[in-house]
Structure formats: C-alpha cells, structure tokens
C-alpha cells in the first residue's frame, strides 16, 4: 500500500532532478505556471522520469488530465495501489 507522503517525497526528487533545481519544492496546487521551465517538452520528460522512478506506465489521456501536482500524486498513488 503506497502512502501519499512517500509518493510526494519521491516525486519532489524527480522534479528536482528534471528541472535541475535542488531547492525546488512541490505542493498539490503547483502547476506549470509556477515553474518557469515547465513547458510541453519538460512535461513529457517529467512523465518519463515518473514512469521510471515509480515503475508504472502513464498513458496519453492521463498525461493530459494532470491539472496540477496534486492530480499527478493522486494518479501515482492510485496506480501503485491498483
């Protein structure tokens, strides 16, 4: 059973790695508008990194449904627990 807190911590590491910023902190409400570098290219890079780190697959429609980091976390938790 994956805990949400653990997922958040691990996901923060993925964000720091992808955006090359060790001080980057994420919150449920964080969106692409809050991070300068977060464009469509970084979005796909982020999805691939999440897939690798958590060992899961995210399909096209799910990628589109990410409205904020909170949505991302919920999806990861749901996928890990299914």
């Amino acid at each position, binding site marked *: 059973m994956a805990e949400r807190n653990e997922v958040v911590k691990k996901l923060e590491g993925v964000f720091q790695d992808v955006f090359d910023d060790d001080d980057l902190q994420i919150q449920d409400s964080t969106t692409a508008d809050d991070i300068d570098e977060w464009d*469509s*290219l970084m*979005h*796909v*890079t982020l*999805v*691939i990194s999440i897939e690798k780190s958590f060992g899961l697959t995210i*399909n*096209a*429609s*799910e*990628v*589109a449904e990410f409205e904020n980091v909170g949505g991302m976390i919920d999806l990861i938790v749901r996928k890990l627990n299914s």
Partner: protein
Amino acid sequence: MSFVSLNFFILITIALPLYYSIKRSMLGTKLLFMILNGIFFLSFAQSLKSILPLLVFLACGYIGTLILKKFPNTLLMWLLILFYVFSFLYLKRYVFLDFIPIWESSFLVIGISYMLFRIVQLNIDVRFNTIEGDVSLLDYFNFTCFFLCIASGPIQRYQDFEDQQKAQLEYQLDEKEVFDAFSRIITGYLKVVFIAGFFSSDIHQLGYAINIMDIQRSPFLTLGWYLFSVTSITFYVYFNFSGYMDIVIGLGKLFCFKLPENFNEPFRSKNYIEFWARWHITLGLWLKTYVFNTILKVLISRWGSKTATPYLAVIAFFVCFFLMGLWHGATSIFFLYALFQGFGVSGNKLYQVNMDKYFGKSRYKKLKENVFYDFICRGATFSYLAISMTCLWGTFGDLLTLFGDSVYSIMGNLFLGFFVLTLISSILMFMFEMVLKWMLLLSSPFEKIIDTLLFRNTYLGAKFYFLAYCLLINVGAPPAFVYQEF
C-alpha cells in the same frame, strides 16, 4: 443545414423548450440530442446513397470501440487507427489515393475530419481503460455527431462530453448566463455575417492581386496586393471560425453544455508555437495529447539526454504539425501548407533552443521582455501565418502567375513579403495595443454605467439590430463556415 439558415433557427426554437421540459431525465435529453443530431446530420444528405459511406465509417468506429473494450490490445488499436485514417483519406479523396476507384462521385463527408479525431481518441482511451463503463450506441452517436460540434468542432474527449451530459441535468442557468449566451451568439453571427463577410469580398481575394499583376505588371504593386490579400484571408478565416465558435459555445450554454473555447486572442501570440496554443485550441490540445506527446515519449525513451531532448522536440513538433497541415485538405497544395506548418513550429522550437544556448536562459528571458522584440515577434508570427494561408485559397498556378515561373522567384518574393508584412504588422499591432490601452483608461470612469442592466441590454439590442440590418442587405446565400470544408 447552415447555422445562418431559417431552418436552423426553427430547429433551435423548437428544441430549446423541448429540452427544458425533459431536462431532468438523462435518457430523455440523450434521446432529444439524438433526434437533433440526426436531423442536423441528415439535412446535409442529398440521398440515402450519399450518406452511406459516412454511416459505414461511423459504424466501423463503433465496432472498433466495442472490440477494444473486449480485447484491449495495443497492436489491435494501432491497426484500427490505421484503418480509420486510411478510410478518412479515401473518403476525402486525397490526391495520392486517386488511383483507387470510387463508386459514387458525390457523397457526404460533412464533419468526417472531426469524427476521425473523436473516434481515434475514443479507441485509444478505451484501449487504456481511461473510460469507465460501456460506450452505448446512443452515447457514441451523440458524441461523434453532436449537432453543435459536428461540422467544425470544438473537439472534446469522450470523457469530458459524458461529464457534461451528466452535469447539465442539475445545472440551472441564471439570468446573467442566459444574457451572456445570447450576447455571444449575436456577436458570433456579426463576426460571420459582417466582419468575415467584409474580408471575403472580391477585392480581398488572391484573384484581385493576379488581376493587378496582369494590368500593371509591377512586381512591387503585385507583392503589395498579395500581402493585402493574404492578410484579408487570415482575418476572414479568423472572424468566420471564431464567430462560428461564439455561436456554438453560446448555443451550448443554452443547452447547459460548457463547450471548450477554441480561440484565445491568437494574434497576440509571440511565436508560432504559442499561436497554435491560442488558435483552434482544441485541435492543438488533441494533437499535443495524442500525437506530440506520444512521438516525443518514444524519441526521448530511445535517444533522450539533456542535450538531445530539445532537438527531439523539434522533430516531434515537425511531424505533429506536418500531419495537422495535411489534415486540412486533400489536394497537393496542402502538402505545401503542411510543410509551412511543420517548419514553422519546429523552426520556432529550434530558434528557442539555440537562443537559450547562445544567449543563456536569463538573457534570452530579458530579451523576450523587451517591447521592441516582443512586437517584432508578434508581427513575424502573424506574417508567417498569413503567408501560409496562401495555400488554403490559392494554387501552385496562382503563385507561378504572381511571382514568375521559377522556384527562386517565388521563394524570393515570399521571403520579401514575410519581412515587409512583419514590419507593417508589428507597427500596427503596437499602435492597436496603445489605442486599446487608452480606450480602457478613458472608459474606466464609466465602468459602473457599462455594467448596468440598461446599458448591457441597449448594447445587446444594438448588436441585434445591426445583425438584422446586415442580414437584410445581404439577402443571398448565407456565408459558409470555412472550417466545415476541412
């Protein structure tokens, strides 16, 4: 049935009270929409024979959906998508499939381009179990043939359409929303009838530039008229298509559907990538979700590295927008249009990557904030779009007639035209923004008056009477919706 026809007006006048009398019943509203969709769809048919291919295309989409629900297999999904795309290309009579015979010369293909997007999306999401529950034939028909969106979008995902079907049961429109819906519908009609009508007059067409060339034989005058024509064509497409969207979204609101927006001030775009996120937004989103992200994911998974990834995005952008360009039309000139779009967006990405690399992120960011650079970029975006629009209205023959019979001469004139139009549009856009700023400043003391019921009703009434006047002086064929042809 055109949205500007009396028949459509009668259909809506009957449908709205019926809708509100059965609004609380899910099955009732679904059946009502089925009837409306059926009437609207069949109104384009000349005979049963003429709609048969499109009905078969739709039936195949539904059978494919059922098969994927039962056997969610990726290879099967791709084979089905290939089949849909091939059927689409065949029915739209793409030139490279001309060698395959066709049994009927004139059959209905209304909305097939948009049906293709909906069917492909449905099949992908059914395969990956993103759609919960079964897809009934009634839901499938209403989704693919929704009368407000069948001809020119907006393109919605099945999940979003279903959510709205459910949400509309409980949704209660308030007075302001009804007012805004009517106001938007009238604005839409005004854009289509009056503004787009103005830009579609003979003087704004490429043919006029060709006539000027024939009479004057002056290359500069020809180039000037050419730029005037492509600018007019761009405005025509914008006002026609965005006006159509205003009508659709306004009517959707009256049926308690919150349809997605398709335009967000596209001429304020500072680059071509941004432009496609502001123009035909739902098409851009669809392509980003199902084509761009998929291609880029495959490329990054295989060859991704910190240095290579931005260049892989250039490739993904090219493929995605080249395909989007091809989707617009079946003749060979659309190949040139597709190249324009592919090179425009991917070239834009390549430019950004290199500017980032050579200037550094912070200096490039500062440069983008510079007003002069900002307006030059806006002008260049508009200019590139306008020149690419030549392909939608002209032929290779027109370009040869206008600019001489060598590729160098055509390319030279197009490059020169691009720079001239960039300069002119940058200046005009800057002046427009200044005027707008001053108007906002001057109107600020009257904000309270503008917001009163009396003022808003007077404004709506004025728009309505102006529309009635435009329709009265323009008694002829109603203006066509340009994207219906794509």
